């Protein structure tokens, strides 16, 4: 009971200031309109065209390349999302070692944090 009451409270209200924040494990059902966004995963070389990332399903299930995907983040923040994509392209670049640049392009569609640019590009160079 203490855990069930205490954990959501501490998640919801930052200690010691008690400032409110949206938090995942705090029974905040539908209280925040999750950001809508579009991502495109691809690789490119120098000024060349964007190419599909080979074997994308081996790296991550549910994503495709290079076509854009419209997604929705009901339970995670914009920073978490950008961090995940940055790690993903870094992981792929490190694994492939083919001289390409691996890119995750994020375009925010709606309900994102006001201080974010509308488009963010996360790049990772793959050394040969």
């Amino acid at each position: 009971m203490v855990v069930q009451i205490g954990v959501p409270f501490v998640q919801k209200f930052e200690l010691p200031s008690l400032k409110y924040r949206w938090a995942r494990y705090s029974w905040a059902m539908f209280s925040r309109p999750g950001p809508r966004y579009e991502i495109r995963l691809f690789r490119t070389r120098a000024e060349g065209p964007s190419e599909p990332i080979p074997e994308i399903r081996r790296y991550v299930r549910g994503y495709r390349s290079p076509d854009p995907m419209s997604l929705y983040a009901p339970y995670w923040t914009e920073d978490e999302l950008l961090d995940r994509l940055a790690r993903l392209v870094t992981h792929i670049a490190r694994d492939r070692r083919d001289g390409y640049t691996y890119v995750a392009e994020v375009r925010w569609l709606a309900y994102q944090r006001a201080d974010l640019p509308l488009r963010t590009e996360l790049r990772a160079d793959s050394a040969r």
Partner: protein
Amino acid sequence: MPTPRGRGPEWAQAEGWFASVPAYRLASFRVVLAVATLIFHVPKFNGFIRDYVSSEFHVGPALGGLPILSPVAGLALPLLHWVTATGLLLGVWPRTCAWFLAVAGAWVLLLDPEHYSHGAQFHLTLLALAGCSTDGVSLSRLLREDEGAARCPGWPELLVRFQVAIVFFYAALDKVISPAWGLKGTGLPALRMADHGPGLGLVQRANRALLHVIPGALSVGTILTEFLLAAAAVVPRLWRVGLFAGLTFVVSIEFLLQPGLFAWDLLVAGLVFLPAGDRSWKMVYAPGCGACRRNRAILSRLDWLRRLQWVICAERVPTSAATGFAGMSTWWRLRLESPRGRAFCGLAALRVLPAIVLPPLIIALLVARFGGEFFTRRGYGPWEDLPFLLLGAYLASWLPEVSRWWRGDRPLSAATGCAHEGRVEYP
């Protein structure tokens, strides 16, 4: 017997945390929860496991030090999910099965932030609480007619009620402070609303328009309802109003948003607020009447909460007179008497029965909803609307009564279907 004023309904008179309560309520709760687990939770979480194991890339678990899923565990866990959910349903080592599902589910939930949802967290919490129950009533026993005397400690029920209160309290509190809700409800038009088939889609379009026209009123209404439900979950005096408000709220969010299992889990948790083991509804029947025997054979298997008492009104009824004795000249030979002595016959009795045989009814609706979604996803039409169509048919059965009431012919309370039957004298 009348309920003492201010103490709430008779069935809610708890006698402390360790009081003994009818075991059928927790057993019904567990069985319905197991069905929800089998048809939604297990397939969803097994999908997470399959995707996790087949992906090379992972972010770190939400909890530091949590072991990641190995390929062997990725093969074994889905199988164990099916086995334990089936065990929970049948009542074979139900506590072990419930705890296994709760702990394994929490592990999968924390492996990746993308696995998280409030609905999943609530379902896992309910599984853990089902794991506390020592009701000892298996599914086969629920389906058999018995004397209804099984009892068990009531504290797991209390925990479920407190859990419901905690969820609604924090959900309401969050909406008070959240910039998207509050008095203005500016974020409400951003809600991702469910799509429905023809007919119901029209209602949904009206709802969408309403969200744009009066978001503030809807926001305040939602917040007040959630606070009311939080209070009602722990104050027995408010249970009757809480059950009505809760059912309306659950149907509304399921229709508007279809948030996975969440609305259904609230419905399942609602079972621990119902009376059980009281045999306070009398079902009048005659052993010599075939329709009566059939009614008993069906309804006694659906009476999981042990609310029906079978009362013989005549030992032997000649076939020719089978439609002529008290209460039995109605459709389906149904005559039901409420705990307050009010009689319902025929269609009116059928309209009352869903409130009595609620656990199996929820199972039927769960199967209709998620079985329907299975077909909808494969392009066979909007079958996931089936529960709403059934609800619509149920409400439509009231239309003749509402029409009579509207014309001033008779009040709704007189819609018992027994107008010409008189009172039954039992031998």
